[in-house]
């Protein structure tokens, strides 16, 4: 390709964009919205999922014992199960002390309190996925009043997140189709505006792809602009959120380091360009009649 050709193609694309400034802006806004929604879903679900995944990997459960229960018998019953790795007895006074420590209360106040807590057994399962079964097994043992486990909430949330993710994916697909349609419509308008030029190109012997190329470049430019715009919004939003989370939920760390975020930004821009290219491919195939 000669320099003259390159200049010609870029100039053609640019003229198009300039002439249809409003439509171009609409196209860019629309693609940006799609990329933003998709990006937010990725950031949100990956982070929450990662945190919940850590919780769900925990193999510990707590078995509350009745006043009258024989701790040793319950322990023996538990250990008889293959899935249980080990157990540890925690008397109710120790439980209360731990509660005081956790809550930061004055330990001296402990002795004025009639301890409402039960004795417990801390049970470790061999594998995290055994936890729910062991919970069921343990709760049937005589002398056990209740079983708690950290997974409980995490698993429920995880199920919820899967639902959110599915919704996000479906929504992204719909929005992606909308973005393609918007790019295609925009390019179609440019094609219409330049039909005389296209006709002349065909008559003087421009190849089909040469005629399509400026429109493809135009589409890619829309996609690129949208990608940059939404990457900036995404990263800005994420940085803000990171700060908020650090302040209010110190135990929950956001999952992404700078490299991953850079990758996400590049991914957003590339995705935008793909939408732009896809939409303009569709439009040019449809509306530039092959000679």
């Amino acid at each position: 390709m000669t320099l003259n050709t390159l200049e010609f193609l870029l100039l053609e694309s640019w003229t198009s964009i300039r002439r249809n400034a409003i439509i171009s802006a609409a196209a860019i806004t629309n693609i940006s919205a799609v990329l933003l929604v998709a990006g937010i879903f990725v950031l949100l679900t990956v982070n929450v999922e990662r945190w919940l995944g850590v919780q769900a990997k925990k193999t510990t459960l707590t078995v509350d014992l009745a006043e009258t229960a024989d701790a040793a018998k319950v322990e023996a019953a538990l250990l008889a199960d293959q899935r249980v790795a080990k157990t540890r007895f925690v008397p109710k006074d120790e439980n209360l002390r731990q509660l005081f420590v956790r809550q930061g209360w004055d330990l001296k106040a402990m002795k004025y309190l009639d301890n409402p807590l039960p004795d417990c057994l801390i049970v470790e399962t061999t594998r995290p996925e055994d936890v729910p079964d062991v919970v069921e097994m343990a709760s049937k043992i005589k002398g056990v009043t209740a079983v708690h486990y950290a997974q409980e909430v995490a698993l429920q949330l995880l199920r919820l997140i899967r639902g959110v993710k599915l919704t996000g994916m479906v929504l992204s697909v719909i929005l992606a189709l909308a973005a393609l349609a918007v790019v295609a419509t925009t390019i179609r308008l440019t094609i219409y505006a330049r039909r005389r030029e296209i006709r002349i190109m065909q008559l003087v012997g421009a190849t089909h792809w040469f005629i399509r190329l400026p429109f493809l470049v135009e589409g890619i430019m829309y996609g690129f602009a949208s990608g940059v715009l939404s990457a900036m919004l995404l990263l800005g939003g994420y940085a803000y959120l990171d700060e908020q989370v650090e302040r209010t939920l110190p135990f929950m760390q956001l999952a992404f380091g700078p490299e991953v975020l850079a990758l996400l930004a590049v991914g957003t821009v590339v995705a935008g360009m793909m939408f732009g290219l896809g939409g303009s491919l569709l439009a040019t195939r449809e509306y530039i009649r092959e000679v």
Partner: protein
Amino acid sequence: MVYLDNVTVVYPNGTRAVAEVTLHIERGEFAFVVGPSGSGKSTLLELIYREIRPTSGRVIVASQDVTALPSSRVPFLRRMVGVVFQDFRLLPERKVWENVGFALDVVGASRREKFRKVPVALELVGLANKSDAYPHELSAGEQQRVSIARALVNSPQVLLADEPTGNLDPEISWEIVQILADIADRGTTVIVATHDREIVDRLRRRVISISNGRIARDDRSGGGYDDA
């Protein structure tokens, strides 16, 4: 250079625009195609630049069977076959020399090639002094010359003109036809579809007369519009 072998064109609506035409036009020859409106002149030219394919028969241009040409090869045929229309088809927002250069831009020519070839083409049609004007600043005859320059700038072997003088005064028409005849004398095959009786009678070149898609008369020796 241009050879039609028993060519028939039937449009999808059933119109038989060209019927069993066999025709041979030599390299460097100048030929008028004349006939009443709807007789099939434009259709005949469209066959040559592969705007349409014949329903039956073969069309051969510069030793290539255009009938069998795949779509991807058509642009390369078009670079050998320049086309000029009644309505000039210039780009209004481009200057004269840009309009001519456009035909080079879109076939991937270099800037150097453009600066070399555009002035030559403009010189050929006598418009060297108007190269920086916009089309709307030109007379109709001048605009038609720009479109001829554009058709010539790629040095085609065949130049087709469909009613090139349809929008022009008799005097200007005569100038345009003379330019076209000059081009033929330089070795380009020129085919002009027209119902401009005056220019045909005055130029005295080959006249192919068609009616209802058939060749009614082919006067190779230089005829008038309706010599019997």
